[in-house]
């Protein structure tokens, strides 16, 4: 509160508009505050992926011969990608559709806010929520399914870049998909259907992924979730598990390439399609 007052009075002396960075950080703080005060929404959104993990993980009990790895451990690793997609793609898709519906975006359009600052605020939000979601999922994996956290710096490095690319690509796609919802009420349905389909055809629920029919696998490979899940499997599973991957390898280079391409594609999609107004009032 003290800082707020100090900033405001300090800025009176300055005539230059505040920088996009400063406004973006201010938006990030606001986004987090709004998000965590929506208690029901937050609890349920956070709880869904870990609940699925705990339930389905308890059903997939068999282990892979010669590796000592259980299906539930594979599921945990893949579910981290699903969990991030849920805190980014699903959450932003629904949240921004609501902001478009309730006038938040129209109001922001009325003030001197660089559009980049709006994006920065969302990034701050999803980085925090996604990190929290990953922490919860890992806790479930470690406590219930004896998942071993990686011991080498190299694997944590892989975790880092897969996390960043997954978060960015799915956030941008979430912002883009919010445009498809006609209203805040329809948004959850509009966003969740493609998300569930994607989880299936990306091998998140099918263990190992090679069990997927060829056609579904080919379609799934076009989208980022398959590659994100593969990336997280490469972090949390021993290299002996590569025999259960489609290519028989972790394919780090290809993962980076596909996720990177989706970041770029998602950005272009956002720039092309983003609307500040709802359909009903345009």
């Amino acid at each position: 509160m003290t800082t707020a007052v100090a900033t405001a009075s300090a800025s009176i002396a300055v005539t230059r508009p505040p920088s996009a960075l400063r406004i973006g950080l201010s938006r990030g703080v606001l986004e987090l505050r709004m998000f965590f005060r929506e208690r029901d929404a937050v609890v349920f959104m956070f709880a869904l992926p870990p609940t699925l993990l705990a339930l389905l993980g308890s059903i997939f009990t068999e282990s892979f011969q010669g590796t000592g790895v259980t299906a539930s451990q594979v599921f945990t690793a893949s579910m981290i990608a699903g969990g991030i997609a849920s805190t980014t793609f699903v959450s932003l898709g629904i949240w921004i559709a609501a902001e478009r519906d309730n006038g938040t975006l129209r109001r922001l359009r009325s003030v001197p806010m660089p559009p980049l600052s709006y994006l920065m605020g969302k990034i701050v939000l999803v980085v925090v929520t996604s990190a929290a979601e990953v922490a919860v999922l890992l806790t479930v994996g470690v406590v219930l399914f004896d998942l071993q956290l990686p011991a080498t710096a190299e694997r944590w490095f892989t975790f880092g870049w897969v996390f960043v690319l997954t978060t960015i690509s799915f956030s941008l796609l979430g912002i883009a998909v919010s445009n498809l919802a006609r209203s805040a009420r329809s948004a959850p349905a509009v966003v969740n259907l493609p998300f569930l389909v994607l989880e299936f055809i990306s091998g998140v629920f099918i263990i190992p992924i090679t069990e997927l029919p060829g056609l579904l696998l080919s379609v799934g490979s076009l989208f980022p979730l398959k590659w994100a899940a593969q990336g997280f499997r490469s972090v949390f599973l021993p290299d002996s598990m590569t025999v259960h991957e489609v290519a028989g390898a972790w394919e780090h280079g290809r993962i980076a390439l596909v996720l990177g391409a989706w970041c770029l594609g998602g950005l272009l999609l956002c720039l092309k399609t983003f609307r500040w107004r709802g359909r009903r009032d345009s």
Partner: protein
Amino acid sequence: MNTVLAVAVSFDRRTPESVGWTSRATRDNTHDRGMTAIDVHNLRKTYGAHAAVDDLDVTIEDGEVFALLGPNGAGKTTTIEILTGHRRRDRGRVQVLGQDPERAGLDWRVQIGVVLQEVHDAGQLTVAEVVRHYARYYPSPYQPDEVIARVGLSDSAELRLLALSGGQRRRLDVALGIVGRPRLLFLDEPTTGFDPEARRQFWEIIRALRGDTTVLLTTHYLDEAEALADRVGVITAGRLVAVGSPAELGGRADAPAEVRWLDGGTPRAATTSDPSGAVAELSRRFGGPVPGLVVTRPSLEDIYLDLIGDVTS
């Protein structure tokens, strides 16, 4: 107290009495008088076959409070949305603070404040949090606490927006519209749905901006336009059918008056543009007082209904 100080310090040329709220007019009188804040020519916007705004022309001077008065669906909101850069026009020339709203950038947005209809955002934040946040978008905002006090929300500053009444919510909208110290403020139907008491309180907030800020407000309340505006533009079916001060609107000052009297107990009436002459004539005819003499000028309401009736019927 220190909030007041912060504001006082920042305005070197202000007298202590004018701290915070009056002074742009005083300060800028020398060079701003007579400048045009809004200049619109042949503005047109259609939705399908329906012309929401149909060849609208209007000019609003710096420092003016201008009311766009018209029934629902007259094109008021569309006009405001075009002037604030929220909507593209089909045709016409629009200059707002010297720039075209469709192409204007953030430096232009810094100078305008916008209060739109039907915004229900940020329900979980408090009044103080939201006003402070919006102050940060601007290079030289008013003190947030001062703005909250100005719109009469000091007692509700720590309430979450979800807990506000409709009237309080609208005051918050105004607080967010003015916190950036705008040169030009747009208010789209600011008091729709208010009870009379709340509307009067709201008018005081707008009156206090006079001189400091050019105001364009839309309303479908006649008394609101009359109470607040220097000039009123009557808009109906997308056209501006009359512009003038509330006293002169639609030729009210010299509109035909109705003269009524009793002629041997029978009511008589005549409509004339020279009521004085008519009364003199009657006096002569009656050779003294005219029985039951009544002279009426049309009320603003008559003029208004006449104006919008001409087009709609």
